[in-house]
């Protein structure tokens, strides 16, 4: 036995990003515009300055044994995709090295190399060649690929007429039959329906039992836990942890949970706000729990704000805007809408507490940011704090449906349904 299938040694990747622009007045702006092409030319020759550098990966080392399925977890921008890009030789590392024993296959995006005008048959050969398969090899596996993709009838139709589901199935089928020693997979499971996801996972499981190695990158912790014995946790380009998956996932989650579920400013003078309002305390927590407790889709929440009202005759109100990780506003709720206390009278200056109760089975899984708005006279926004609080809603697996990818939608309410037989065929 060779000791490893994949060995990564002190791998780093540096990106050069544009320097922050300096503000300029009118005349300088015109000059700057004129000089831009020359500056651009010059910038490609000189070494990058400190503020232009972004380390997407820094000093990452790990080893994967043959036949092991290893997961890579971490937030957006943690370096997961960069790692896969280096391992699949799409881009070169800046320093360090990786050794892979055998052929590498990557499923970074399905449908790579498909040409919309060509037929399914032609595209199988083209895509196979792009992935590094020989013509004879593709011919040998052709029937198997077609059967897996369930597209027999449409082999001689241009793929541009395929439904997106068919397209994805065919593309995955080609890649899955590459039979590499090391397979790199990035979020392919986010596409396709639940049944197809199951099929892909099954295929990946097979790959692993044949002694092949899989590196699986995903946001979806349920899928990672289901597939991988061991995982790597990347944070800001560095290794934050490496070990048994269940253990690592729970560490990762608790780190994510504590990110920003509570904030406190002891003194009004140092607190965010203005001459009318200052914040004292913010928190989001399970109802009856603490901000450190985990939140799942089934958890009812309490979102709390304590603030100093500083002006004498204020009709202050609070609004919370729930923003999902995809930057979609799930909803906005206002204290004036359904308040348990009567706040129609002006409030004297003082410290106030507003609590908003969010029912269970309303939020979708994923990261949520809360934007705090303080309004006066039921409409005028006098203070706003973006990403005032951040919390992660977990999928406990209690709800049926897509297990391995997030169900679409800004919210995920649990609704009443009935289905009954109302007549004959």
């Amino acid at each position, binding site marked *: 036995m060779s000791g490893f299938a994949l060995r990564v040694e002190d791998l780093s990747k540096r990106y050069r990003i544009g320097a922050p622009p300096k503000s300029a007045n009118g005349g300088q702006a015109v000059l700057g515009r004129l000089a831009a092409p020359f500056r651009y030319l010059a910038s490609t020759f000189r070494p990058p300055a400190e503020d232009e550098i972004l380390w997407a990966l820094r000093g990452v080392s790990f080893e994967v044994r043959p036949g092991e399925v290893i997961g890579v977890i971490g937030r957006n921008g943690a370096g997961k995709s960069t790692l896969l*890009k280096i391992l*699949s030789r799409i881009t*070169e590392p800046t320093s360090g090295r990786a*050794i*892979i024993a055998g052929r*590498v296959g990557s499923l970074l995006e399905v449908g790579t190399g498909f040409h919309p005008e060509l037929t399914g048959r*032609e595209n199988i050969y083209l895509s196979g060649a*792009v992935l*590094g398969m020989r013509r004879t090899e593709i011919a040998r596996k052709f029937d198997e690929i077609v059967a897996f993709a369930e597209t027999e009838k449409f082999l001689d139709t241009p793929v541009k007429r395929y439904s997106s589901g068919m397209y994805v199935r065919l593309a995955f089928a080609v890649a899955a039959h590459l039979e590499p020693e090391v397979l790199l997979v990035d979020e392919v499971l986010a596409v396709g329906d639940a049944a197809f996801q199951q099929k892909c996972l099954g295929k990946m499981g097979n790959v692993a039992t*044949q002694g092949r190695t899989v590196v699986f990158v995903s946001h979806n912790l349920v899928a990672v836990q289901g597939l991988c014995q061991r995982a790597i946790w990347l944070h800001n380009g560095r290794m934050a942890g490496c070990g048994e998956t269940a253990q690592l996932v729970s560490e990762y989650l608790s780190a994510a949970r504590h990110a920003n579920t509570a904030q406190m400013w002891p003194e009004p003078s140092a607190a965010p706000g203005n001459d009318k309002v200052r914040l004292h305390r913010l928190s989001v927590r399970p109802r009856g729990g603490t901000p450190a407790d985990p939140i799942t889709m089934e958890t009812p929440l309490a979102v709390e704000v304590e603030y100093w009202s500083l002006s004498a005759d204020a009709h202050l109100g609070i609004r919370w805007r729930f923003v999902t990780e995809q930057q979609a506003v799930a909803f906005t709720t206002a204290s004036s809408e359904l308040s348990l206390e009567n706040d129609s009278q002006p409030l004297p200056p003082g410290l106030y507490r507003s609590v908003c109760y969010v029912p269970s089975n309303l939020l979708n899984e994923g990261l949520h940011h809360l934007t705090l708005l303080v309004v006066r006279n039921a409409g005028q926004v006098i203070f706003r704090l973006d990403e005032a609080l951040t919390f992660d809603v977990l999928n406990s697996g209690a709800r049926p449906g897509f297990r391995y990818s997030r169900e679409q939608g800004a919210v995920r309410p649990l609704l009443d349904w009935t289905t009954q037989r109302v007549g004959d065929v």
Partner: protein
Amino acid sequence: MSSAPANQVVIEPSRGWASLGLKDVWEYRELLVYLVARETQGVYRQTALGLSWLFLRPVLNMLLLTFVFGRLVGVKSDDVPYPLFSLAALLPWGFFSNAVLRGSRSLVDNMHLISKVYFPRLVIPLAGAASGLVDLAAAFVVFFTTLLLYRMPLRWEMLWLPLFMLVALGFALAAGLWLATLSVKYRDVTFAVNFLLQALMYMSPVIYSASIVPPSLSFVYALNPMSGVIQGFRWALLGSGEAPGAAFALAAGLVLVGIVSGAYVFRRTERTVVDII
């Protein structure tokens, strides 16, 4: 499955002037064929005339040149019918301009592939230049049909054609490699290529005969590889003019330098191409 696979892949930053990795390119030769096929097939799908466009283009070009320069302007064509005279030049020129155009765009056009999967990047400009060969084959069919219509004989000198084609292919490849590399950092190249090709066409004997070039300029004129290639085509196919001489050998040498330097420059840019585009 327990034995260690012999083919170990080591990924590390390459320093200085990397090797060309020609062995890797050879491994992926089938991809080269597929990319050329995709280029030609994909373009003509869902067109009413389909692959006939391959033949129509040289025919239409020839008719246009014959009408404007043969009839209206009255360009001297060395005692050869102007249609054949122009077609003999359009063979290598049509091939060359297509190959340079595709080669120079190849990296930027195939970014969706490059950013998603590994393969030797040299395959891409190679396929761009090679796809011009399909146009060339079609143009040859047109040429020999026309030759037959004029009842002109086949000549032994035609056996020299592969040599001239090789120089044209080499020149197209060299230009494609350099331009593709530059286009990654400077998109200006995409605009410049059309102009450069137009200028080069006027500097080559496509619409006129090389015999009108004054002797004082003839050496500099012959340093353009395409002028030698076109003269060679006319000489080999029609027996008009003279076979290109020593200056052509020098131009071919320059082409070789262009290919090698272009390939190395390309390889140097290749490793960071995904980070730039």
